C-alpha cells in the first residue's frame, strides 16, 4: 500500500504503536480495576494502592487521547482526580469510580 502523505503515514504508524502498546494499557487497566474492586469490597483502599492507581490513571489520561481515544483521556482524568483526593474515599466515590472504569473499558473496546 502506498502512503501518500505524512499525515496518512503517521496515522498508520500510530495504529501500529497502539497495537504494540496494548499490553501496557491492559496492565494499567488491571491495576485500576484491582484497586476499584478492593475499594468496593472492603470500603477502603490502602494508601500505596491508591497512589499506584492514581499514577496509572494519570498515565492513561496522558496517552489515550493521542491514540484517538479522547473520551478515554477524559474518563481516566476523572478517575485520577478522585484517586488523588486527600480524604478516604467514600462508597459513593467508589461507585462513581466503578462506573467511569466500566465506561473506560467500553470506550477502549470499540
Amino acid at each position, binding site marked *: 500500500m502506498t502512503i501518500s502523505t505524512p499525515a496518512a503515514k*503517521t496515522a498508520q504508524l*500510530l495504529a501500529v504503536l497502539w497495537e504494540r502498546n496494548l499490553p*501496557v494499557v491492559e496492565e494499567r487497566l488491571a491495576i485500576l480495576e484491582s484497586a476499584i474492586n478492593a475499594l468496593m469490597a472492603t470500603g477502603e483502599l490502602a494508601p500505596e494502592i491508591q497512589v499506584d492507581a492514581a499514577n496509572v490513571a494519570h498515565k492513561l489520561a496522558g*496517552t489515550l487521547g493521542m491514540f484517538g481515544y479522547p473520551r478515554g483521556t477524559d474518563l481516566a482524568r476523572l478517575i485520577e482526580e478522585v484517586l488523588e483526593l486527600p480524604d478516604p474515599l467514600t462508597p459513593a466515590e467508589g461507585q462513581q469510580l466503578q462506573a467511569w472504569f466500566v465506561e473506560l473499558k467500553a470506550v477502549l473496546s470499540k
Partner: protein
Amino acid sequence: MRKVLIIDDEDDIREVAALSLEAVAGWTVVTAHCGAEGIRVAAAEKPDAILLDVMMPEMDGPTTFKNLQANPETSHIPVLLLTAKVQGVDQRRFASLGVKAVLFKPFDPLTLSEEMAAVLGWTD
C-alpha cells in the same frame, strides 16, 4: 534540519512524539528515558529544542530543567514542558519555571510539530 530531544519515561509517549516530529515535520529526533540521560544527551547532541516530561521518577522535569539551565552547554536550548496535569495551579507553577512553553498530554500527533514550531518561532 531541526533536531529535537524528547525526554520522557513512558515508552509510548516517546515513540508517538518521535513519530510525529519525524514523519510530520521531518525533524531529527533523539530521545532519553529519564532526566539524567536527557541531560547527557542534550550536552552531546546539542538539540535545537527539548520536549521534557514533567512527571518522571528519580529526577522530575522541573529538576531536569534546572540542571539543563545550570550547564552552559545546554542553558541556551529552549525547553517545552509536557504534562498531563491540566489544573490551573499546576500550569502556573510550570510556566513560572522559565520554560519556553507548557504543552499538554495527550497531544495530537498530527499537530504537535506545528504547535512546537509556533511556540519556538520556527517558520522554515
